[in-house]
């Protein structure tokens, strides 16, 4: 045997790169994550600058107690209501012989396409008496229950029902089985959905402003917009952020207790439970939910569209706002999708602790109320990028930070479709890493990237809170123009804007539903 000598062509740099713990992808991924997460640090910086005295004065005000009470009681009531409705709807559509189950799933998910502030508008404009605490509970429950229903339905669909069948064979009745098997099975999904609902509630501004109900978000907005008191607004924001992180922590703690094994699916779906005499009441209940959450907004939009503009304000063009909106939304979509690719690739290729934490950090903004993200971008621009303040790039940056988790999820979902090992095989066939990306990985995820961009674009085009804070002076998007009209009680003039936003939200909601539930059909009939 000859003594092998050192291979030629191993330059020191190549050697370091080949052997180092970081691939060339890592610096890019970390830079993106740092950029996305950094503005949040400025909320803390700003709050610290308020000074201790001011902080004490602000935080000691009785109004803070009111805000906390208002926000927490609302969050508790809505979270409970959405959990009950969401689980019920998911159970009925996934585990029973309800007629037309697949149609019900779509109908029940569609309310997500109605932005909360449009929903607020549709109730308030038809019945001015809907306002305050109970108004907020009604409107937000109608808006948010799909956030519980979709993950629960997905879990129920994935698990094949064998656990329920075993429970029945052990002599438990249908109700006992529901309570002791199905509910615990769905508990992680239920908890995740409930968390999402409460985080949403913390950050919502438009609907509460419309319903004249004061929460943290509306108080922060007023503080910032009217008084332009950045310090006290950021103090309130940091309380809000703390509240959000507390919720996330609570969820993580609760999640550790209820451990469910992921039942291996046999590919056979469960035999649906027969509803029997509960069929009519179930149908009626679901119909009521759909009527309240989908029917009322559609009716309101139709009513005001037909009634025409009841306005004294000068009419603006829907189409020019739509164009502006689309411009911003598409830029944000392209930037955030492009930024999500390196982070997703890095996490997908290397399951290391470092890669996982980078990815998790990127999801951090998802747990934070939209208004907090928007304000942090404002502070950042004022202090460190003055020329960008109230310029188009700032709004795009705000969207990117706000919707980066959305893009990342979509890109990760696309990467999950790539069979494991193809990149390695491509390299073993003599292809350089960049060529592997161009010839194998990107062609495989391209449709997914398109979906990611579309998702971000359509979501961004119905965003109100951050847009109000970040838009360049004089720029009107669909949401802000709608807001101008409704603030002037010009409900008729606002209707076309609302209708357009709802229409634009339908595709991402359908996409989300399909991705959450998978596209494989459930059998319509028992057995």
């Amino acid at each position, binding site marked *: *045997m*000859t003594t*092998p*000598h*050192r*291979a030629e*062509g*191993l330059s020191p740099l*190549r*050697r370091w790169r*080949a*052997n180092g713990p970081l691939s060339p992808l890592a610096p890019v991924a970390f830079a993106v994550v740092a950029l996305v997460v950094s503005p949040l640090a400025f909320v803390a910086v700003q709050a610290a600058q308020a000074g201790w005295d001011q902080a004490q004065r602000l935080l000691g005000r009785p109004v803070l107690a009111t805000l906390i009470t208002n926000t927490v009681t609302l969050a508790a009531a809505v979270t409970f209501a959405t959990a009950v409705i969401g689980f019920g709807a998911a159970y009925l559509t996934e585990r029973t012989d309800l007629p037309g189950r697949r149609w019900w799933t779509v109908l029940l998910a569609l309310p997500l396409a109605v932005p909360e502030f449009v929903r607020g508008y549709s109730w308030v404009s038809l019945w001015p008496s809907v306002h305050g605490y109970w108004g907020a509970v009604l409107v937000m429950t109608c808006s948010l229950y799909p956030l519980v229903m979709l993950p629960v339905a997905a879990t129920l669909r994935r698990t094949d029902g064998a656990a329920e069948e075993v429970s029945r064979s052990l002599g438990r009745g249908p109700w006992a089985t529901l309570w002791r098997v199905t509910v615990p099975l769905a508990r992680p999904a239920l908890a995740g959905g409930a968390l999402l609902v409460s985080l949403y509630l913390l950050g919502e501004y438009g609907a509460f402003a419309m319903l004249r109900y004061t929460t943290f978000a509306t108080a922060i907005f007023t503080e910032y917009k009217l008084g332009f008191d950045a310090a006290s607004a950021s103090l309130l924001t940091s309380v809000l952020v703390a509240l959000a992180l507390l919720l996330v922590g609570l969820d993580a703690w609760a999640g550790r207790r209820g451990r469910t094994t992921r039942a291996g699916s046999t590919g056979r779906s469960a035999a649906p439970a027969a509803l029997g005499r509960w069929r009519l009441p179930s149908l009626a209940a679901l119909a009521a939910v759909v009527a309240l959450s989908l029917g009322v907004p559609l009716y309101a939009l139709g009513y005001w569209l037909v009634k025409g503009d009841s306005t004294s304000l000068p009419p603006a063009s829907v189409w020019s706002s739509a164009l502006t909106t689309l411009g911003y939304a598409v830029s944000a979509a392209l930037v955030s999708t492009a930024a999500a690719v390196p982070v997703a690739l890095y996490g997908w290729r290397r399951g*290391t*602790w470092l890669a996982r934490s980078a990815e998790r950090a990127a999801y951090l903004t998802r747990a934070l109320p939209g208004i907090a993200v928007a304000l942090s971008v404002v502070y950042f621009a004022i202090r460190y990028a003055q020329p960008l303040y109230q310029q188009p790039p700032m709004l795009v940056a705000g969207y990117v930070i706000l919707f980066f988790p959305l893009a990342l999820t979509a890109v990760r979902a696309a990467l999950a479709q790539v*069979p*494991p*090992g*193809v990149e*390695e*095989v*491509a*390299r*073993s*066939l*003599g*292809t*350089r*890493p960049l060529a592997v990306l161009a*010839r*194998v990985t990107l*062609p*495989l995820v391209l449709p997914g990237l398109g979906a990611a961009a579309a998702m971000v674009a359509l979501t961004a085009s119905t965003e109100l809170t951050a847009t109000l804070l970040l838009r360049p002076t004089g720029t009107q998007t669909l949401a802000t123009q709608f807001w101008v009209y409704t603030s002037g009680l010009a409900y008729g003039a606002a209707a076309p804007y609302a209708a357009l936003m709802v229409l634009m939200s339908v595709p991402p909601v359908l996409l989300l539903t399909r991705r959450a539930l998978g596209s494989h059909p459930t059998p319509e009939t028992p057995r």
Partner: protein
Amino acid sequence: MSGLTITDLHAAHGRTPILQGVELAVPDGALACVLGPSGCGKSTLLRVVAGFHPARRGHVALGDTVLDDGRGRLPAERRRIGYVPQDGALFPHLTVAANIGFGLPRALRRDRSDELLSLVGLSGLGRRHPHQLSGGQQQRVALARALAPRPELLLLDEPFAALDAALRTDLRAEVAATLRAAGTTAVLVTHDQDEALSFADTIAVMRAGRIVQQAAPQDLYREPADTAVARFLGEANLVPARIEGLQADTAFGILKLTANAGAARRGPVLLRPRQLRLSVTPGPGKVRTRIHRCHFRGSDHRVELAPESRGLPPVLIAYTDTAWPPGEAYVEVDGLAHPVDEPTEPLL
């Protein structure tokens, strides 16, 4: 002089050591098999050789080229090593022909992919997409794709594991024939001893991140290094004996040994089930047993015997051509006994 040489190879996942001093030599043109239970590190070994996983220290060389010495690594794309993973990992967005031609310069793609399609018996399927092929066909395409750039070494990571039994046997024989015809040096990783015994020229048994024995299949089966290797390769009767020089003193009398065992000691000797002969009449060197169970396995019968004399394990296994009814039988030994030791290191 070509061939794969691995010396004192160490590798780890994070802080967990996986490979702990692997020694392996595969001569040019040989089909080698790394055989070991799942979790022993055999896939990691393959990935280090392919260039997907870094070595911590040690030495991996292909011919005169150093692939990895713990400090420098040749990138995977410059190693000229083909790789066939367990599930094939075909590029789903490319046709079969484009998959096979992936690693070739544009000008050669068409001719070479046609040539390889016929080599793996899939002529005419070049325009299909991977999802239109059966599992066995997909694996053949994966093999053709890896062979297309004429690699110096081919690595196969349990490539038949996902297939059903009959197809697995056929494809295995087919692949071995293809590789021999192409003269390719190949390393196959598997946990299936049948696969290893029927496929390879040389088998390396791996355990807890080390190669414990490397030998030709027949030698490995008849003369394993220790009791664990003996059991891993097939059913084994381990009979207590007094061993000295070329002889073992057992309950079956004096048996000849496969090799000189040196100074006198006590220890087990290995007798494979086929070495036990059953008869109805007593005689010298025969042990009286009760037939405990006998079941038909298609090609032969597997007989469980309970020996009545002491100094033997409670159950002996014999494979016979004819069925044995319950009752008594006398057992004698045919061929050489092989002295085996208990393994010195942990099994996983």
